[in-house]
């Protein structure tokens, strides 16, 4: 082994070193090109939209954006909004001491990780943080700041301190303006205790009465229909290219007429995959099934939050455009009489990251 002759460059050594050099050069060049190159347009507020002309129920606007590299198809989306969307602090429940139903803990953690990263990439101006149950109890007890907060629960079960047969911090908080995002079995059905597996026989469970008690209305299935997927996108779902299609415990589409609910994802029969239900000054955003794919959930949430869709009040207009690199300028006639519009430019593909928005006062 120590023979000087063995130190020479054999065929094997030459092959090994040749490939090593090739890999080092390829990775080095890749890193320089990727990490130093111009990114796809990420800053969500970089969109320029100006009013050209206003006449009655129509408005002409000019939209300018630079999608950056890797984006060839851009969708423009516009809809009236109540006010300029107010960014909320996003708090995602992840407490290892409490059981998870349907999904696993990785997925719950992943929902937070991906939401934090996706919103952070676009320069979301408010914190996206993980909270434990004690922190959530404090947060939901603070009704003064409810309107500035969004709570995300994808564990499928409410901590009993938050919502159960003997406690309800949720409804007052919603009434005060809070926004709750829910993924998992039927909302309000299960309540869990610290360091205790969730069981259907737990006396604290409100079970079938849970959704009604929480939301003050019916229309939410409590018996899941496994594998039921939305087959038709809603207008907003198609506009933002949302991918969450599960309607296992989907909210009834009838709530659109009876309770002012907004259908934002996909629909199968009378079941909606993503539904925003107003409760007092706040609202609940219900994902109609267990969150198995945290990435899809996080991306849909990111598009809903950044686009201002959660404040939309009326119809949606879309326009697909091709970009040729550099700044694109599009003149667009919109059929809206409202004075405040959200205008969004996004890459509608599943992997699309480009998303920019502007609020236009007409």
């Amino acid at each position, binding site marked *: *082994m*120590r*023979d000087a*002759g*063995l*130190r*020479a*460059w*054999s*065929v*094997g*050594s030459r*092959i*090994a*070193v040749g*490939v*090593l050099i090739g*890999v*080092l050069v*390829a*990775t*080095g*060049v*890749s*890193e320089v*090109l*990727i*990490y130093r*190159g*111009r*990114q*796809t347009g*990420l800053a969500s507020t970089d969109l320029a939209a100006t009013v050209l002309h206003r006449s009655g129920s129509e408005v002409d606007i000019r939209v300018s954006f630079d999608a*950056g*590299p*890797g*984006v*060839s*198809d851009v969708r423009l989306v516009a809809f009236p909004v109540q006010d300029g969307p107010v960014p909320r602090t996003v708090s995602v429940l992840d407490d290892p001491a409490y059981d998870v139903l349907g999904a*696993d*803990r*990785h997925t719950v953690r992943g929902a937070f*990780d*991906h939401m934090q*990263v*996706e919103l952070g*990439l676009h320069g979301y101006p408010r914190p996206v943080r993980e909270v434990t149950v004690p922190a959530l109890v404090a947060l939901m007890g603070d009704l003064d700041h409810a309107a500035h907060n969004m709570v995300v629960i994808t564990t499928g079960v409410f901590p009993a301190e938050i919502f159960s047969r003997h406690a309800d911090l949720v409804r007052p908080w919603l009434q005060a303006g809070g926004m709750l995002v829910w993924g998992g079995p039927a909302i309000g059905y299960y309540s869990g205790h610290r360091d205790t597996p969730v069981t259907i026989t737990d006396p604290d469970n409100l079970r079938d009465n849970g959704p009604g008690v929480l939301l003050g209305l019916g229309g939410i299935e409590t018996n899941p229909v496994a*594998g039921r*997927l939305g087959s038709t996108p809603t207008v907003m779902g198609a506009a933002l290219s949302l*991918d969450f299609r*599960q309607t296992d415990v989907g909210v009834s589409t009838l709530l659109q007429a009876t309770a002012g609910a907004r259908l934002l994802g996909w629909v199968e029969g009378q079941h909606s995959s993503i539904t925003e239900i107003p409760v007092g000054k706040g609202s609940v955003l219900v994902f109609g099934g267990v969150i*198995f*794919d945290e*990435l899809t959930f996080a991306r849909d949430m990111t598009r809903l939050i950044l686009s201002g869709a959660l404040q939309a009040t009326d119809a949606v207009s879309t326009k697909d455009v091709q970009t040729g690199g550099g700044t694109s300028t599009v003149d667009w006639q919109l059929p809206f009489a409202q004075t405040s519009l959200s205008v969004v430019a996004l890459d509608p*593909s*599943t*992997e*699309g*990251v*480009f998303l920019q928005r502007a609020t236009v006062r007409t």
Partner: protein
Amino acid sequence: MRQPGGRAVVQAPLPSATASASAAPSGKDRFAVVRGVALPLVIGLAVRLVLAPYTSWPHDDVVWYQATVAGQHHTTLYGRLEFPNPPLWGYLLQGLGWLLGHIGVTPAMLGVADPRMQSVDLATGGGFSVIVTSPLYNVSFKAILFVFDVATGLLIRHLALSLSGAPRRANLAFAAWFLNPFVIYETAVHGGFDVIVAFFTIASVVLLLERHNLLAGLAVGLGILTKVAPIFIVPLLVAVAAGLPLRGGRLRDGLDLRGAAMFCAGGLLSCVALFPEVLNGTALEMLRNTFTRIAGGGDVGGLCIFGLKNFRGMTWISAFAISHRSALGLYAVFIQFVTSLGLTLWALLLARRNRAFAVLAGISLIFAALVLLAPLASPQYVLWFVPELIVVSAVWMRGGWSTALLCAASLLFPLALLGGWSVVSPLAEYTDVIPVSSVVAHVIAWQDAPGALWGIDRSAIFTAPASLAAIVAFVTLLIRYQRAPFPRAQHA
């Protein structure tokens, strides 16, 4: 010394390297190499190129697709927390994305999101993907893997020739790798990048045995930057670089500290590849993504002892894993660490009799133990040490049947897991040969089919015996290697 087959075997590691490989290869040598590998090379590449365009393993290939698209978007490898491995393979994919982007290939041409696949994804518990990668993309990224396939095969041939001095055996070793159905499946169908780990591992062995310690360290370092697993063979390689075990000589004379230092320096040199993440502030994201799976989610199985859960009557394994999920991953790493150290010592003891055999057998068994003791082991992990198994089989006639059994089990497992239809979604999506609905229906039917015979479900009829076969192969390898045919006094 004589092999069981009665054929003379050159004993010392790389003895013929001194004769034929130390000098630059002559034209005649080159011709012999070409003649020896040409036929299997052509056949192997042809088979790969036929399979590559219209097959994929969606659960993994979508991640490669995401990394490639991220390269086109310049959003960095860990910018969206999609890439769950160390960065090297991801950098190659991002470079591919940049390259394809500059010749006019847009993300839409790399794959499509087909909502029809979501039902399969749900039925398989997230084991599928709605994104179906395009034939163009499949060929592009698998072509990178084919380069490593070929390079690994050539190193196998080189080692086998150097250690046995028998060109025929060396050529057979090359064919045993390059025409191996398991190897072909993993790179041409699955698109798994474990062949890169296999290459860096065998490259580090070649370079170490030929005393290019710095480069050997660099090779194993790049292997670790591809997948973390090669870190478990570092103690063995450092010890060999340091000249251990000493053969009766005094420590001062025998210990090659400079060799060990050079090896370690090479390993550290590979860390230069991490600079972009450090400079970009995404080093923590890289670590988080790479090590998340160690924390354990209670999901166990695969080609390991936990795979026995798929036998009827063994479902208590799953219940045990779920009830101990928070600690299982960490315990498993601890046990893997202790076992790998034990096997390192075993290999070093063996090295007193034959250093090359000890290195190859040690690496094989350390990797095999890692796989078998992992809570969740993918069959493609076996690819990491198939080159070493083949070289040992070709040179010392040890473990050939065990290697074949292991490869067969590793091929059977993924095909049985979701059924054969699961790998042809690109064929359905991009041609009219089979409809997408057939793929969806067949995969879901396979997934929902009840158990039979000894399996708890349809796939378990095959996956459970595959896991058992892997365990049997490991044990028989251990026994066969322990009875290595070397005189104790032999100095390699």
